[in-house]
Structure formats: C-alpha cells, structure tokens
C-alpha cells in the first residue's frame, strides 16, 4: 500500500465527497417503527396533538410510532394490524411521547411510511401511495399549467401539512410548455384523490338560466363547525339513510351587486321571489334555493350551500355527507381548474409491497457486487485490483445517493435497476482501465502510462456520451414515467467518469509502479 495512493488530489476529493455524502444521507439503521410524514386536518390524530414534521426536519428525524396500544410495531403491516384490531380509542407511543386518539373509525388520519433509516427519499413504488398523471382536456398555456398545478395542490393539501407533490411535466426538454401534471401523495387512497382532482369545480349561480356570478364571485367558504355541518338525517326508503349538510359562503361585492340586479327584475310571489337561484357545479344542478322576498334588489353577499350524503346506516350516511361537504368546501374555495382534466395514469401502491421491494433490492445489489468482485479476483489472481474496484464501485453508489438527497431526488424501483446497471457498467470500465494500463510483457516498446490511460479514457468517454444520448429521451417520454431510471443512469455514469474512474486510474498508476 502506497501512501501516494491516498494522498493525491483524486483520492482526496473522492474521500471528501464520500464523507459529505454519508453526512447528508445520515444513515441511522437503529430507527424502528413507522415514521409520521403528515397528519390530516381534523383527523383523530391531529385532535390528539400529533403534528406534521416541519420542512426543516430531515426524514431520519421524523417522529416515529413504536407502539400501538402497548404492542410493539416494527412495520406498517404491524401498525395496520394493530389499528384494525383496536377499539375506537387508540394509544400511540412514539419515540417522543404518548398520544391518545379518540373516535377512530376507519382511519387515524396519519400519513405513514416505514421508519426512515436514511435521508434518501424513496419513490412511491417503494413506500406506497398514489400517483396520478393527468392531462387537461383543452390545450392550455404555460401560465394556466402553473395555475392548474397550484390549484390542485391547494385542493389536495388545503392546510399545507400533508406530503403531497404536484409537478408539471414536459413532453421533451425542448417543449415550450408542460403536457401533463403529476400528483404524488404518500399513503392516501386514489379514490380520495380522484374525488378532489377530477372535478373541474366550475361553479355558477343562475337565476332564470342567466348566470349571475361564477366561481370568481366566491370570496370565502365558511368551514367553522358552528355554521357548517349536518342539518338533518332521515330514513331513505327502506334501504338506507340520507343526511343533508349545509355551509355558508361569502360572495365578493361585485357578485353581491349582480345578485341584487338580477333579483330586482323578479316579482314577489307569496313570501319569496318568482324564480329560485340555481347553483351549478360543473354543469350539474347542485341546489335550487328559493329567495325570500325581502332580498329583492338587495346586494347580498351571504349564501348557503347544501348537499347530501347517504349510507346503509345513519353513521355511514353522516360520514358520507361530511366527506362530501369537505370536498365541496375545498373545491369552492380553490375555484375552478383552468380546464377539464382526465387521468392518463393512476397508480395506487400498497406500502407493504414497496417495503419488500426495497429490502430485496438491497440484497440483490449486495449479492451482485460480491459475485462480480469474486470474478475480478479470480481473473487477476490478486486482490490488488479487486479491492480498489469494489471500493470505487461502491463509492459510486454512495455518491449517487448523496446527490439524490441533496437535490431531493426520489429513488424508485426503476432507479434501483439503474443502480444495478451502473454497478455492472462501472465494473466494465474499471476492467478496461486495468487492462489498458497493465504493462504488456510482449510489446516491444512500453507505452507511457499517460498514453495508455488516454486510450482507456477514450473508450470510456465514447461509451459515456452514447449512453447519455440513449438515456436522454427517456427523461421525458410518456410523461416521464421512466425519468427515475434515466436520471439515475445519467447521474451515476457522470459521477463515475468525473470522479470515481479517474481516482481508480490514479490508484492503478501507483499500483503498477
């Protein structure tokens, strides 16, 4: 072992970057239980005092649930089993304190994932959750795509406390504007999301088929429980129950004036006006309210919105009505989407499946490295090359993970395939370097080391540019569904040609002296 092998610029840079990567990844393999990523507003969990992690908290430091009702939970599977068996009062013990959740019916309102042992963010296919790729039905401008994204984000995350990612996606790097919007939400079912996303939310209030005001006339939606809630429940035939809800909204002064003008034209019939005000959502009549006579011609900025929910029992009907009310409140307060939208891809991935993928992938990566190292050892009949090769290949992976953490990149299943492939091609290039620079006994004139290194580098760089060229289109094709793969591969081989392979070459130079 030559001191120079480590005390040269390449090796020192690599070591420095490795330390930096490990620092940002901050592995903490002792973390057990399930991590809390987010808490839904007004859910049993929030009422018990559980809060979402703030933005500065790195995921290894998220609060973790370690016991449910006194029983240890090691995985999401354990957690859901315990919740399923629990009564409506659930005692959650976290690594920080104990919470008592009351009235838990079907969900605690927590967004969870397996305990994070590193800061590497995993994709939905590894942690579970819902991904929708949507496309506006109309051709809309780049600014409207921004509006669409902001609006969808507000609908899905009205209180800004859940782990929701809404991003616009271009069809190619050169495209002037996006073509898709991707929505990723960890740990929430796709039905819930589709209910909120798929409605355009185009609100119209009409009197005698004339639009009086639309969604832009809604100034605010009152969600306070004193005024908003269930009005009545009654048996609906012999099969079930129907509950009605209502909540007030305030209109802008302009919309109020328009209401005054429109009602001024109506006549008084009995105690109310000759025509009702009809409220439409996305072209469907939602409610038809009769207007009391004293409002005629008056600029009125308060109005009550109502609707219903149904179910087999009163409890279910009540819950359905409350859910519908919440959806409607969110849709009215966020306003109309710039266009109707359709879902082009929807995935709802169970968290336990992802967990098993991740464990397996780690095992596969480890095994593959081991077997290849063995081959290298057998071929060169000395650990002299095999050991630096393994170290260099593994550091490629560590640097890549460090980069992923720094730029908030999600490692998904396809990225893992990319990493295995980088490991494979990494060994290929290290073998080229080794073979090109090993002195050939038979050749008459021994080429200078630099010349040999340049030849090896030429092969590596040509292969590099070709691979990047092949991967680039994948970054955008089909709403970027393989972006993870393309990015990981490009980033991985770039790190390799810039940092790790030159370091290996340097080590070789001293090895062969």
């Amino acid at each position: 072992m030559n001191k120079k092998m480590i005390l040269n610029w390449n090796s020192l840079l690599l070591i420095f970057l490795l330390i930096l990567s490990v620092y940002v990844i901050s592995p903490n393999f002792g973390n057990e239980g399930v991590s809390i990523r987010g808490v839904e507003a007004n859910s049993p969990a929030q009422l018990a005092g559980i809060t979402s992690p703030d933005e500065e908290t790195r995921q290894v430091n998220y609060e973790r649930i370690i016991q449910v009702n006194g029983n240890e939970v090691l995985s999401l599977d354990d957690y859901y089993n315990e919740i399923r068996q629990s009564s409506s009062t659930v005692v959650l013990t976290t690594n920080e304190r104990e919470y008592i959740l009351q009235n838990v019916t079907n969900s605690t309102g927590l967004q969870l994932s397996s305990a994070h042992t590193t800061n590497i963010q995993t994709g939905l296919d590894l942690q579970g959750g819902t991904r929708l790729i949507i496309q506006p039905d109309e051709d809309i401008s780049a600014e409207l795509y921004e509006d669409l994204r902001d609006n969808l984000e507000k609908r899905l995350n009205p209180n800004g406390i859940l782990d929701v990612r809404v991003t616009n996606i271009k069809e190619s790097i050169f495209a002037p504007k996006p073509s898709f919007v991707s929505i990723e939400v960890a740990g929430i079912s796709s039905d819930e999301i589709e209910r909120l996303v798929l409605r355009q939310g185009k609100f119209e209030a009409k009197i005698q088929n004339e639009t009086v005001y639309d969604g832009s006339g809604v100034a605010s939606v009152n969600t306070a429980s004193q005024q908003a809630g269930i009005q009545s429940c009654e048996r609906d035939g012999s099969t079930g129950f129907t509950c009605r809800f209502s909540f007030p909204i305030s209109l802008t002064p302009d919309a109020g004036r328009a209401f005054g003008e429109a009602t001024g034209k109506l006549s008084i019939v009995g105690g109310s006006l000759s025509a009702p005000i009809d409220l439409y959502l996305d072209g469907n009549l939602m409610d038809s309210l009769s207007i009391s006579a004293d409002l005629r011609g008056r600029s009125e900025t308060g109005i009550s919105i109502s609707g219903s929910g149904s179910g087999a029992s009163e409890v279910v009907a009540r819950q359905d009505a409350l859910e519908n009310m919440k959806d409607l409140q969110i849709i009215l307060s966020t306003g109309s989407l710039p266009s109707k939208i359709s879902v082009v891809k929807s995935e709802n991935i169970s968290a336990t499946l992802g967990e098993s993928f991740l464990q397996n992938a780690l095992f596969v990566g480890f095994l593959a490295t081991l077997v290849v190292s063995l081959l290298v050892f057998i071929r060169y009949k000395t650990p002299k090359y095999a050991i630096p090769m393994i170290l260099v290949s593994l550091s490629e992976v560590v640097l890549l993970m460090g980069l992923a953490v720094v730029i908030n990149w999600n490692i998904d299943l396809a990225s893992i395939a990319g990493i295995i492939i980088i490991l494979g091609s990494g060994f290929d290039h290290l073998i080229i370097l080794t073979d090109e620079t090993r002195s050939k006994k038979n050749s008459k004139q021994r080429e200078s080391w630099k010349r040999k290194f340049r030849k090896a580098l030429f092969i590596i760089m040509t292969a590099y540019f070709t691979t990047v060229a092949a991967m680039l289109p994948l970054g955008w094709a089909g709403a970027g569904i393989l972006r993870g793969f393309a990015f990981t591969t490009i980033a991985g081989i770039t790190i390799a040609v810039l940092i790790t392979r030159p370091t290996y070459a340097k080590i070789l130079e001293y090895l062969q002296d």
Partner: protein
Amino acid sequence: MKSFFSFYEKKYVWFTLIPLLLLVFSAAGLLYQYSTHDGEIINKGISLSGGLSVTVETNKEIDVSQVETELSSQLSSSQVRVRTLQDQGRIQGYVFQSNLNESLRDAFVEEIKTSLALTNEPITTEVTQSSLGAAFFSQVIQGIFFALLLMALVVYAAFRKWVPALAIVLAVIIDLLVTLTIFDLTGQYLSAAGVAAFLMIIGYAVDTNILLSSRMLKAGDSDINERLFSAAKTGMFMTVTTITTMSVALFFTNSEVISQIMFILLIGLCVDFITTWFLNAGILRRYILRQQPQVVKKKHKRSKK
C-alpha cells in the same frame, strides 16, 4: 489458441455470416409476430398499451390458469393474465393484468377479491390510458433513432473513419432487433421499464464494440491477431461480469420491473457477444487488411523468424 486463430484467419468471413443469419432469423420472427398479432411486432404490456394491473399480496396458493380462465369469462370481452410474485421461492402475491377500461377498475378488484376469497390483503392498482402508452412508445422509438445517429457521429468523430462507425451501428441494430425477436418468442409482455432496457443495450453494446474498434485501429504496430486477442480478453471478461450481475439480479429480484429489465439486458448481452466478436471483428479485420496491408506483412515477417 494458435490453431483456432489460423482457422479463424481463413474463415473469418464465414463467422461474420452468423450475426447476419441472426438478422434474417429476426426479420422472419418479427414478420411472423406481425402477421399473428394484429400488426404488432411487440407484445405490449399494459403500461404501453393501456389497461389495468392489480397486485395482491398474499401467500395463498392458487391455480393460476384456472383463475385466469375464471376471471376472463366473468369479465367478458377481456383477457386476464395472472403472474405469481415470488421472493426466493416464497409466494408473495399475484399480478392480474387486463386490457379492461379504467372505469372497470373497482369491478376488476372486486372480481379478484371474490375469486381468491381475499379479506384484508394489501392491494396495488395501476391504470394506464392507451394514449399515454402510445405516446411513450413513439417517443422512445424516436429516441432510439436519435441515439443511433448520435452514436454513429461520436464513433466517427473518434476514429474519423466511416466503416468502423457504421459497423458499430449495424452491430447495435442487430442487437436490438434480435433481442426483440427473442423477447417476443418468450411470449412476455413488454412494459415501459422493459423499453428502458432496450436503450441500455445500446450503452452496453457500445462498451464492447468501442473497446474492440479502439484496440484494432489504434494499436500501434502490433499484429492483427494480437490486437483481436487482447480486445477479446478484456471485452469477453467485461461481458462475463455484466452477465453475472444481470443474472444475479434476475434470479433474486422480487420486482417485475427489475426482472424484466434484467431479462432483456441478458438477452441483449448474449446477442451482442455474437455481433461484437463475429460481425464487428470481421468487418474491422477486412477493413484493416485492405487499408493497412503492412499489418499482414509484419506478421509474415515475424512468423518467418
């Protein structure tokens, strides 16, 4: 080794015919596929053609083909395919795929639940519209052409000679077509992730082919057999390590995504082995002998000694 080289020296043109025969086989295979699969040269999986995929996590043992026919008959006018998910021999669950319309997702899930008598098992669903798959596919095809073109330019810029550049492009095209044909023959359905594997074949094929071209064309004054031999020693070892990595991943993975990528790469690497060492090596040999006859003379001089 010597006798092999003297045999190879005389008959190397015949060796180049093997990859060309593979190309003919591939053309025939793809034509057959085209005529028997409604004008499709690829069996597209649901992430490319649109449809539903439902994954159920359970360790129940089921009769896959029976469930397949049962579900297909219940959900009329649709084909249901069922595959088993395994992790080191243990059953982990099943993947159900169908070309059903997205609106039937819930019905599909219900049918599966009833037919497997499931209760609370975790379920994963994936719905893809055919428009997205089609757009993805056509963009990737464009991408492959772009990559091939760029590759030809990079190789030309590197060697300043057209024959070696075109030889590599030809080798890569044969790699892609023959791999696709073999993949079709296995009856598997190509997913979006599998498409990525085809692009990776380009990357791997370039590795060995550039190594070969560089050693053959830039080897100073060494003998042509020596050049080929040294390239083969390195290149074949590279292929062996890569094939090993892919095989380990293919054998031990429990993910459909990774398994398909590795499977396609494995076929591609085997095909590339043939195109690199039989086709590209042959073309380069003939090219060098025509351009630089001194390489042969030198060899004769040495053998006289």
